[in-house]
């Protein structure tokens, strides 16, 4: 009789687990800039397909993945490390340890410029996991289920003395929705990217370098005319990000009037979630 009782408990658990898993997915595209403090971690998800752009400075990215991904989904289809700075790469070691990453888009981590003890650990972890490693090149296109990515920067033979300028810049397309992710590029590269022909108007920009004045350039802003600018930045960070210059640029009359630009910051509202049904898009809790 006792076993009977426990068996029924167990079946109840199984049934509720199934219900919870059914309700955890929707068919829209979700772009979530995780609140990971001073750093970047952006989760792009549609049903059970995930793209992760950067991993923040530490393990708090795991909380974000746990919060938004269905609990039974342990696979991330594409992980991107825009560049190896710690505030972008810090969480990847444990992301690789606890999730199955199918593809990893990254700069060549053997580059002497990037070398550090952590990067070496990360490289070994990636190497031992059977993950397909992809190196970026201008003009490269990647498709992950219905999501398309175009790589705008860097080219294969790009050289710079600054890690930030190696940041992988990509444009995401899902139906009519377009978003650009810019890593930590500085204004030189910002200008360079603004001349790319595949750019066009873009709905969403992840503002480069946590809103540093040495990041977003006016040319890039004018070229893409975004509706939403997301700044991923830590509360009271020691760099003073986002800088006044960039906020002024985003708030300038032309930007506000012409593009009806909305600025969303992770230090002010936590995770910034944008949802798109491929035609239109909205921020979470409003439509």
């Amino acid at each position, binding site marked *: 009789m006792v076993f009977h009782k426990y068996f029924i*408990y*167990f079946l109840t*658990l*199984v049934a*509720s*687990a199934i219900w*919870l*898993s059914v309700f955890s997915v929707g068919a829209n595209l979700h772009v979530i800039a995780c609140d990971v403090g001073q750093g970047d971690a952006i989760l792009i998800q549609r049903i059970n397909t995930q793209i992760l752009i950067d991993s923040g*400075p*530490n*393990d*708090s990215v*795991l*909380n974000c*993945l*746990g*919060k938004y*991904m269905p*609990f*039974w989904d*342990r696979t991330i289809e594409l992980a991107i490390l825009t560049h190896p700075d710690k505030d972008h790469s810090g969480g990847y070691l*444990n992301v690789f*340890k*606890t*999730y199955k990453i199918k593809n990893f888009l990254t700069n060549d981590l053997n580059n002497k410029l990037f070398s550090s*003890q*952590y990067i070496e*650990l990360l490289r070994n972890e990636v190497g031992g996991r059977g993950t397909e490693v992809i190196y970026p090149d201008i003009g490269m296109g990647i498709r992950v289920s219905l999501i398309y990515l175009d790589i705008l920067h860097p080219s294969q033979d790009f050289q710079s003395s600054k890690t930030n300028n190696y940041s992988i810049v990509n444009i995401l397309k899902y139906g009519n929705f377009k978003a650009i992710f810019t890593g930590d590029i500085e204004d030189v590269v910002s200008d360079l990217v603004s001349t790319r022909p595949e750019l066009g108007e873009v709905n969403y920009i992840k503002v480069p370098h946590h809103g540093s004045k040495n990041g977003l350039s006016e040319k890039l802003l004018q070229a893409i005319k975004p509706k939403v600018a997301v700044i991923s930045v830590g509360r009271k960070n020691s760099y003073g990000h986002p800088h006044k210059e960039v906020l002024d640029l985003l708030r300038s009359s032309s930007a506000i009037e012409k593009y009806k630009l909305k600025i969303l910051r992770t230090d002010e509202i936590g995770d910034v979630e944008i949802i798109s049904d491929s035609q239109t898009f909205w921020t979470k809790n409003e439509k």
Partner: protein
Amino acid sequence: MIYRCSIFLFLIFLIFLRFYSTRPIYKNGDFIRITSKVYNEPIIYERLQYLKIQGLKIYLPKYPAVNYGDTIFVEGKINDKKLVSPKLIEIKETKNFLYNFRQKLIDFYKASLPEPFSSLVAGTVIGSKNMPESFWDKLKDTGTAHVVVASGTNVTLTAAFLIGVLTVFLKRRHAILITALGILGYVIISGFDAPIVRAGIMGGILLFSQEKGRVVSTWRILIYSALIMLIIKPVWITDLGFILSYVATISLILFQKIIDLRLKLIPAVFREGLSTSLAAQIGVAPIIFVTFGQFNILSPIINALVLWTIPYIMVLGAVGGIVGLIVPVVGRLILFTLFPLLWYFINILYIF
């Protein structure tokens, strides 16, 4: 009577002997090298890992990671029971089956469930404190951290589960023997934290007294286990976990039944959790408040709401983990069935 008293005095004498013979001989400013096995799981902070070796606090860089059971070789300067600017010279990874088993279990939980659910399971089943800082803070704030620092409850559950299952197949004598070995194994796997060792010793004494058909008073077991522990490791007398564990057990013995009888109006699912938590709080809350300045008046209510899930999480988590090391898919499915309970537990924490 005289016989008992002399045993008692002899034990106390042994404690003093051990206390003076194991006292470290170094003083502030000394430069030392330590080679030691790591007997507790290091606590991971954003940039550092913290471990306590030979009574010394050591903060090392986060990588390379030191694991429970490894042997490490560090050097540094002593300052006030702390090793200043420590340098990690070498880590020898453990080859011991049980230590590795623990690490494999933790890895399997982390690879099967998202955070913070996986940390909750790993903490509940084997007391792993390796979890995101924000979740650890949440547990402390709500007064529920005791569920993830493997405690006496875990040992009791392990013993009850083993006895329950084994007596179906084996003679009682053999079942008790294997259960005792199971408890020992569990103490090793979950790290030699004072509360676990206490429960392990108490559980062991109880088991064998049952085997011999003798009734032993709980108080006596409590005192003897404390003496045995202090002989093994005299520094435990200053260990907060040791003190809290005993104070909580004493409060439980004194107050739990009385409180439980007065809570008839509370539904049975929550009653045990509430009375246990209230009884333990009587002794524990003042100590926690004095040492950490932390006190959550709602903690007994939160505990009452979540504690009933712990036996299920522990049993299914352990079964899922062990099965998962052999057939990962099946183990993972078992862990998935736990998800509703974990989801409930964590949402209760975040409501408060």
